[in-house]
């Protein structure tokens, strides 16, 4: 057993209802351990350093710890704030919105336990999530309801007594024809080196529509392992924007099943990395029904000593005729010490399909740079303009206020690039 698991899988006081889930998860973890270098899904992300670390299981002061976080601008239907994995009543706000139900599961351990078991954890980090879970939330939108203002879920990582490991389970359910805008904001209250595990499941009923924004701006020293699992019924649509700029080590498994006829998934994503950041996004979309569509465009910028990993797999199952699948991944490598690993994958088992993917890794266009410099922009500024434009291409469709926030955030992360020869 690794130091990591040793430090986390001991005895602890927790609601009895969760004990069974925890025991099963611990047994699975002891049996299986964390993925190693020979595990294909972890080929580009080594867990060696993480496994040597020791964490404190949960933050007992999370409900009272003062935090300093800038929330996202704009109106909201509800804002749910979790600090180190535990819900914070005082920071959260929710009015009564017709058709919107928010159930906090920290006070309903039986329901949380049931949620953690169904479906059973998909991998080792899913087990870790279940083992550490103390809180959770379920967001439900009634069939036919249209929630105008977005719901915000804010995951705050805060420094505690020692490095803590925490987890959270989130369930988002949209009834038939329901519409919701959801913003997930991962943010650090101050520098910390916590380990966070968040598992979120999205269930979209027939004709439901979810506009989802995932903004990952976690604390620089932290480790964040996420799994987002979406299942779409007929004619349902998921429109996703993902922005990743934070954390020391971030891994995101994004699993989408287009289960109903005509289901659609559109995804725009960007990561901008610097320092020694390592961000690994693993996207798997499966077309399970006829006439389903996915359209994925992801961009990455790696500067300094960072490493960006993108795996985008599209599977068209037998019988899913009429599938239309597009994936494009473009990357900028800005430093000789940085690395980009990209792997667009197609698995096609039906013949009436249109499927295409493309991936590029390169640098800024010399001619564009020259153009800007000939207009009097210093090299450094010209670079920043071009990189911002490169990232901006996948941010269309964000609300203006949110877009402005993301642009400003990217600007603080983007190159102070070293001069390329």
């Amino acid at each position, binding site marked *: 057993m690794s130091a990591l698991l040793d430090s986390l899988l001991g005895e602890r006081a927790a609601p009895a209802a969760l004990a069974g889930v925890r025991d099963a998860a611990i047994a699975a973890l002891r049996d299986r351990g964390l993925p190693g270098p020979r595990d294909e899904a972890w080929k580009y992300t080594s867990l060696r350093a993480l496994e040597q670390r020791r964490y404190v299981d949960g933050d007992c002061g999370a409900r009272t710890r003062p935090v300093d976080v800038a929330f996202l601008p704009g109106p909201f239907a509800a804002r749910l704030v979790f600090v180190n994995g535990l819900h914070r009543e005082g920071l959260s706000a929710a009015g009564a919105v017709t058709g919107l139900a928010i159930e906090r599961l920290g006070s309903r351990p039986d329901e949380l336990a049931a949620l953690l078991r169904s479906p059973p954890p998909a991998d080792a980090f899913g087990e870790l999530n279940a083992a550490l879970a103390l809180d959770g939330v379920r967001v439900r939108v009634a069939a036919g309801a249209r929630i105008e203002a977005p719901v915000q879920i804010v995951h705050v990582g805060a420094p505690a007594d020692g490095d803590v490991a925490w987890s959270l389970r989130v369930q988002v359910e949209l009834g038939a024809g329901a519409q919701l805008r959801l913003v997930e904001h991962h943010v650090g209250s101050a520098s910390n080196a916590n380990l966070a595990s968040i598992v979120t499941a999205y269930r979209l009923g027939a004709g439901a529509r979810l506009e989802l924004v995932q903004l990952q701006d976690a604390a620089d020293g932290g480790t964040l392992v996420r799994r987002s699992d979406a299942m779409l019924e007929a004619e349902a649509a998921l429109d996703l924007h993902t922005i990743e700029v934070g954390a020391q080590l971030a891994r995101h498994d994004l699993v989408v099943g287009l289960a109903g006829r005509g289901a659609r998934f559109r995804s725009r994503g960007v990561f901008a990395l610097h320092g020694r950041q390592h961000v690994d996004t693993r996207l798997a979309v499966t077309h399970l029904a006829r006439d389903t569509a996915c359209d994925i465009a992801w961009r990455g910028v790696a500067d300094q000593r960072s490493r960006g990993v993108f795996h985008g797999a599209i599977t068209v199952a037998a019988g899913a005729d009429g599938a239309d699948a597009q994936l494009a991944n473009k990357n900028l490598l800005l430093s000789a010490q940085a*690395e980009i690993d990209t792997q667009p994958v*197609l698995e096609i088992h039906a*013949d*009436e399909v249109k499927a*295409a*993917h*493309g991936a590029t*890794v*390169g640098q800024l266009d010399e001619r564009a740079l020259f153009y800007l410099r000939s207009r009097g922009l210093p090299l450094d500024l010209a670079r920043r303009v071009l990189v911002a434009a490169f990232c901006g291409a996948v941010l269309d469709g964000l609300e203006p206020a949110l877009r402005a926030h993301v642009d400003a955030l990217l600007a603080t992360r983007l190159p102070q690039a070293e001069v390329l020869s």
Partner: protein
Amino acid sequence: MATQTPTAIEIERTREPNGNAAVEAALNRRYEAGFVTDIESESLPPGLDEGVVRAISARKNEPEWMTEWRLAAFRHWLTMTPPHWAKLEIDPIDFQAISYFSQPKNRPKSLDEVDPKLLETYDKLGVPLHERARLAGVAVDAVFDSVSVGTTFRKELAAAGVIFCSISEAVREHPELVRKYLGSVVPTGDNYFAALNSAVFSDGSFVFVPRGVRCPMELSTYFRINARDTGQFERTLLIAEEGASVSYLEGCTAPMRDENQLHAAVVELVALDDASIKYSTVQNWYPGDENGVGGIYNFVTKRGDCRGARSKISWTQVETGSAITWKYPSCVLRGDDSVGEFNSVALTHHRQQADTGTKMIHIGRNTKSKIVSKGISAGRGQNTYRGLVKVEKGADGARNHTQCDSLLIGKKCGAHTFPYIEVKNPGAIVEHEATTSKISEDQLFYCRSRGIGEEDAVSMIVDGFCKQVFKELPMEFAVEAKKLLEVSLEGAVG
């Protein structure tokens, strides 16, 4: 086939909307090259241990260093496990059930002494030996099972300074070259099948093109697996010295078999400064019948090392045969300004499975690579492209373009693409694009409205789909490849 009671699959197929009798006949066509030459083989009994490795080495009168080299590889192999990462469904292979050496009993001393039946086999396959070789202008090192039986054009090649012989002969006559280069591109412990090959390799070709020499003719080896239950383990080593250039053709057919035959070859190419090597393969081994019974298991390690500056290695392959294809011809672009190319057409029909692609490792500066992969899946075939483009830190100005297209014919086949792109140099430009689609209805309709039958239309479209690769093949191969595809795909539409 026609006289037999139709199987469930056949009945099902005739019910498909566009099914017709001609299509059925073509689909059920028997493997044309499926015949067995009745020549007594002198095989070792099945099984593999150090004794077998020593016996193979002894039969080939190999020097001590070669035996030790084999044994080291064998010992390493024992510590390894077969790879499982490929998208292939393979029953476990019993490596102890295979005989690791077989050769025709009457060892010929010259081409005239070659068993007429053997020559007849080549005749049926269209191997240009004897006068035919001269007419065709192709030098042939024909490998019948495991021992070279005849090599032509040796003299003409020798005059140019080119060495073209079997690897066993090279071990005896040019040990300094073999010792220097053998295993220098594919080390003995490189992978499971390369280790196995290193331990038990039976024969293969050796080509050495000295400094500044442009090889006066295209070199060709026609492999043929013959004796029952005998794995064939060729080892090919091809060296082009500074400024040399050579084009090498490799083609394969094998007789019909019921049991799966194992084939694990290793091909090593070395290109020094300004050298250029073009390696073309048409692979048409027995793919098994429509129910997936029989067929060759083809596990090949092919790697070219662009060791010198401005060197170039180009792989072109047309893979239509074998039940299982596991093959990734690769280029290590070590020299500055070196160039690697990979052009591939892979076709899977019935229950064939192919997991094939390439690796381009950019190490030197301004290295360039181009990958064109065309996969065609029909019947229940599974076709996978798996490729790696890796740009190391020092590879300033590296450039890669990859295009992989898949064509699906039928509801039960699969086409998959697994590219790996790893870039560590900010001066590199790497591009990958892939598409998957079925044969376009519009194109089919256009052809048919011009009075072209469905079969011919499909053939034309597939030919167009593969054209980019075919044009890289030497002429005689291009013709053969085109015919192979046509024959393999007849009736696959419907």
